[in-house]
């Protein structure tokens, strides 16, 4: 993986480089194989938020596990900041939040983050201040002394993020961080990710909920059945369609007719008139309070 990526010219290795990655799983008794990742090549530049999108089973989590050296690739390879995955050094600068995370139920939130911090080489007052910082950052300060076994799904995602951030890694890999989390929680997660980006972190995030990702990511890649089907800037992929839409206050029918006539007089057509609706998610977010809710142990 020594070959320089697009950023190689400046001497800065890409945050993530995936080259021709293939992963087959043996399924069934007769040596039947399932190709979960099919010749994927990707580059994530330092400092960007990169979205890995795709339906369930498209190979997003498998790609991440290969990247972290938790699985062995069938072919191809990947590297993190230029260090090949599979080497312990590659994981030094990475924080990982697994899909539907699960943590030691018998520890409290604070004990959990302390344990991971120690594993990453933190100790003493450095560890203590980092611990308080990340626990506060994810909004769990009020619940940090409760057993992880009593946490809700959203709280598990938050403590998972705290654990991923404790050693201040340059790269964060978040596998479906908003799956099973309510809209307010997901909006907070999105804000957190943007705050991390502002601090110069690189973020790889996967999701099958496209709407949430769109506002967050600089670039995205779309996987389908293990293969890469699209990759590029969000603005480029999901951007301008070459069409225009208007939004105004409610107009009486005769004014709409006049508008239509005016357009037609210039050889244009008014193609759609519809009342603008609020999305249910906005309604939910305006009515449900923000801030720590399930985190304080009771409402």
């Amino acid at each position, binding site marked *: 993986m020594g070959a320089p990526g697009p950023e190689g010219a400046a001497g800065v290795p890409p945050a993530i480089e995936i080259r021709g990655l293939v992963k087959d799983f043996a399924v069934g008794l007769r040596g039947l194989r399932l190709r979960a990742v099919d010749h994927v090549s990707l580059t994530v530049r330092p400092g960007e938020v990169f979205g890995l999108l795709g339906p369930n089973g498209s190979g997003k989590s498998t790609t991440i596990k290969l990247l972290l050296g938790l699985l062995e690739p069938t072919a191809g390879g990947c590297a993190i900041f230029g260090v090949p995955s599979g080497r312990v050094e590659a994981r030094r600068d990475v924080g990982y939040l*697994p899909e539907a995370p699960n943590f030691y139920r018998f520890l409290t939130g604070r004990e959990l983050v302390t344990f991971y911090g120690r594993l990453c080489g933190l100790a003493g007052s450095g560890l203590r201040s980092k611990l308080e910082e990340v626990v506060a950052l994810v909004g769990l300060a009020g619940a940090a002394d409760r057993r992880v076994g009593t946490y809700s799904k959203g709280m598990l995602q938050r403590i998972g993020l705290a654990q991923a951030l404790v050693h201040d890694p340059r790269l964060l890999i978040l596998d479906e961080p908003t799956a099973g989390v309510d809209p307010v929680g997901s909006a907070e997660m999105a804000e957190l990710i943007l705050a991390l980006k502002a601090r110069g972190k690189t973020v790889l995030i996967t999701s099958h909920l496209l709407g949430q990702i769109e506002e967050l990511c600089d670039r995205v890649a779309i996987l389908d059945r293990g293969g890469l089907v699209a990759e590029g800037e969000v603005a480029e992929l999901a951007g301008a369609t070459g069409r225009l839409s208007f939004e105004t206050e409610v107009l009486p029918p005769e004014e709409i007719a006049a508008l239509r006539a005016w357009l037609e007089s210039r050889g244009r057509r008014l193609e759609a008139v519809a009342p603008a609706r609020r999305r249910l998610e906005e309604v939910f977010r305006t009515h449900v309070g923000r801030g720590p809710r399930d985190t304080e142990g009771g409402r």
Partner: protein
Amino acid sequence: MNAVRFSALRAWLIAGNTLREASRQRFFQFLLLLALALTLGARWLRDFNFGAPELKFLADCGFGAMAFLGAALTIAATAQLFFSEVENRTALTLLAKPVWRAEFVLGKLLGVAALSAVFCALLTGLLSLTLAWREAELSRLLPDAVAPGGGVSHAMVALGGLMQWLRLLVLAAFTLLVATFAQSQLFSVVTGFLILVVCHLQHLAQDAYARAGSAAGLIASSLISSVFPDFQVFQLADSLAAADLPATGDVLRVIVYALSYAAAAAGLAVVSFRRREI
């Protein structure tokens, strides 16, 4: 880019977390209480006073509880604590940190070793107290029954406890080796018990084949005995008399024997776990 070296500290941290998990589990607390109750309760199992043989009986009960429940505890704990990481997917987060897989495997082994050390130490301590108390009582009731020189040697009791722990350490290492390639916890537990039986009985098989003079049997049994340790060697402290204390050299030889088997099994476990897909 400086390398991340193998760190005993990280293995130790993982061991500490493993021990903490075990100590917060009801099943292991129950096994410990049961063993303590058996050790203490042996005093009331027989309702007669007959001096030194009674003390030996108490010691046999205590060590019996330690051997049997200790093996159950060790096998169950090794398999459970390993598979809880894999099945609850906590191994995913752990191994995504800059942690060597060898540190994970050794951490698990150290954690279980610490658990069985606590188990053996508590039981040995209680047994020593029970024996001292009963010895004092007996020498008051039947001054002649406890012959001079036939008194309890607490060094001997401690040595017995150490032998029990060494045996559990080897058992833990073998069970962990199985767990690193097994797909299920049940398989590891069952195989762990089979290994226990083989380790206990292999010397019998060897004797039997030697007597029968069957060459094929002899080859098979010596193959088995070169792979599996002989748990008979841990019967070093089968008496309570200070006069029977084995020579230091013999004790050291058994310690080295146990540690070499544990290290070999742990080494194989590290190799087998290195490629496991998490």
